[in-house]
């Protein structure tokens, strides 16, 4: 990074579709994937005389998200009309928020783990609640010079989250998006499905160059059409290189030309110029006379704040502090979502062995969840049963490899630990038979005994495999201990 002759400056605008059953200003369903134009009414198609009424849940979900992003919630907020002409916008204006958004001045902490992991606070300028537009599809196949418009999505509630230009690399932008998405999933305010358009990202980017004449900024470019987080990363990498080349060729600075909009082409991996963005005054914002303002009391803010619950950053710290898991492990567990964390906590508490629990759920549990594409809620081994298995291993009743066999049985047959052990013929080897087994082994392996006596304790490892063959139920560490004890007594 540091060998680049420039610094990349990135701010992201994320549009999140809120998880409501109905639209923001009418009671048409928001269900995805329904036949075109079957979810519209006079309000969302902008018929004369219709009146919008705010969806209470949409406002509550917005406030919950804003509070989780450490935003201020102003006491007074209102909605404005943003006017522009586009066929997918039937009213000729979008109901959005302009100078009095419902939240502002927050931050999100991200952890960028490239090289040294370091925490960084990314400012949130504002998060405001607005309505979505419809969908336009250009009908090339028919050869007709028409576009087709589906207004099902028109009026769906969107929360627009605008970051400060605090991000300094494509990797940081990715880390911000990953953390934001995880946060939204923990809050359960959106399904965050990018394919269905529930989460959309626009990126604003330019370069700062340290020239002999002083600090120079290149013109800001807004990149649209970013269909995945991967696309965001690649587009930012491409765009920063492009801006540097253009700077070298043309020397155009920020302020010399209006802000540009470029679209990302995912196939060719380039950004391409789009129409010039209209100046914001061209949107002729004014307060929507059809909607009344919203006044929020401090009591209500506190009530919603209490519903936020424990968030990823706090959980990561708690898992490290209370359960002694590493930062890396805490990340893996927390990134799997709230249910997975709850499962970990339940197993760790019940088994009393957090370290072993952490290893088990990251290896056996995650592997099988991924193989079967199931969630932790659908996982066949419940937390209590896994805890008894881990206890059995922790107390030496089972060794790890037999433990995995038992787990396989629990997973596949749905058996509890004791039943699974019985099915596999695993019984505890009593001390007497363990001793006599070890004595036999030592008698048959005088070379091993000799080597151990010369100080090579490792040599005893050769006996463990033999012991397991004679009796698969013996515990390797016990075999080792008993053999060493017997040799020292010889």
């Amino acid at each position, binding site marked *: 990074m540091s060998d680049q002759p420039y610094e990349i400056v990135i701010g992201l605008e994320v549009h999140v579709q809120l998880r409501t059953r109905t639209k923001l200003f009418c009671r048409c369903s928001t269900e995805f994937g329904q036949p075109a*134009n079957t979810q519209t009414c006079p309000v969302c198609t902008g018929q004369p005389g219709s009146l919008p009424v705010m969806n209470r849940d949409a406002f509550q979900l917005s406030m919950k998200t804003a509070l989780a992003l450490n935003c201020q919630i102003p006491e007074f907020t209102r909605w404005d009309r943003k006017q522009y002409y586009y066929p997918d916008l039937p009213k000729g204006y979008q109901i959005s928020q302009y100078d009095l958004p419902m939240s502002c001045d927050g931050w999100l902490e991200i952890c960028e783990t490239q090289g040294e992991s370091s925490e960084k606070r990314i400012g949130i300028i504002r998060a405001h609640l607005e309505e979505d537009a419809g969908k336009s599809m250009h009908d090339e196949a028919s050869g007709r010079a028409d576009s087709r418009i589906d207004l099902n999505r028109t009026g769906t509630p969107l929360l627009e989250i605008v970051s400060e230009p605090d991000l300094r690399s494509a990797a940081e932008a990715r880390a911000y998006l990953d953390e934001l998405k995880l946060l939204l999933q923990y809050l359960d305010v959106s399904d965050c499905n990018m394919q269905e358009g529930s989460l959309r990202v626009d990126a604003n980017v330019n370069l700062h160059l340290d020239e002999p004449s002083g600090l120079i900024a290149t013109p800001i470019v807004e990149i649209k059409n970013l269909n995945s987080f991967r696309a965001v990363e690649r587009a930012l990498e491409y765009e920063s290189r492009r801006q540097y080349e253009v700077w070298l060729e043309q020397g155009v600075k920020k302020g010399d030309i209006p802000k540009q909009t470029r679209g990302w082409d995912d196939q060719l991996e380039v950004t391409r110029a789009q129409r010039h963005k209209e100046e914001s005054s061209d949107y002729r914002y004014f307060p929507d006379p059809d909607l009344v303002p919203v006044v929020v009391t401090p009591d209500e803010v506190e009530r919603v704040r209490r519903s936020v619950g424990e968030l990823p950053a706090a959980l990561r710290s708690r898992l490290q502090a209370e359960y002694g898991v590493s930062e890396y492990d805490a990340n893996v567990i927390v990134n799997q979502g709230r249910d997975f964390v709850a499962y970990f906590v339940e197993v760790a508490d019940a088994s009393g062995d957090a370290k072993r629990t952490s290893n088990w759920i990251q290896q056996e549990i995650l592997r099988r969840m991924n193989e079967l594409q199931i969630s932790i809620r659908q996982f066949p081994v419940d937390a209590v049963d896994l805890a008894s298995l881990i206890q059995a291993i922790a107390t030496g009743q089972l060794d790890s490899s037999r433990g995995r066999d038992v787990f396989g049985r629990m997973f596949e047959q749905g058996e509890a630990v004791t039943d699974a052990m019985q099915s596999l013929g695993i019984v505890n080897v009593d001390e007497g038979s363990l001793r006599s087994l070890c004595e036999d082994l030592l008698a048959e392996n005088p070379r091993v005994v000799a080597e151990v006596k010369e100080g090579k304790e490792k040599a005893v490892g050769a006996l463990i495999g033999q012991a397991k063959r004679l009796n698969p139920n013996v515990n390797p560490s016990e075999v080792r201990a008993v053999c060493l004890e017997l040799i020292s007594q010889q």
Partner: protein
Amino acid sequence: MSLSLADVQKVAMLARLQLSDADLERMTSQLGQIVDYVNQLAELDTENVSPLSHAGELVNVFADDNPRPSLTRAEVLSGAPKQDEECYRVPAVLGE
């Protein structure tokens, strides 16, 4: 006159209205008169008057998040100048 021809041209462009030169001139004069009329409000002393967001005094009007039936597709498309029984059809939207 408070409005220039260029102002009206710009507003016409933003509203996607194509106006002839004669229309533009007439609009500039008529719109100008309206703006001048409203501008009389600027003569009032508003020193101690706080800004108003809404003419009414209501706040916090919400509806519950319960779906209600939408219009049928046939109904909603019936007013469209051009449609194909599934979608509205409009002049090509390109350049996006």
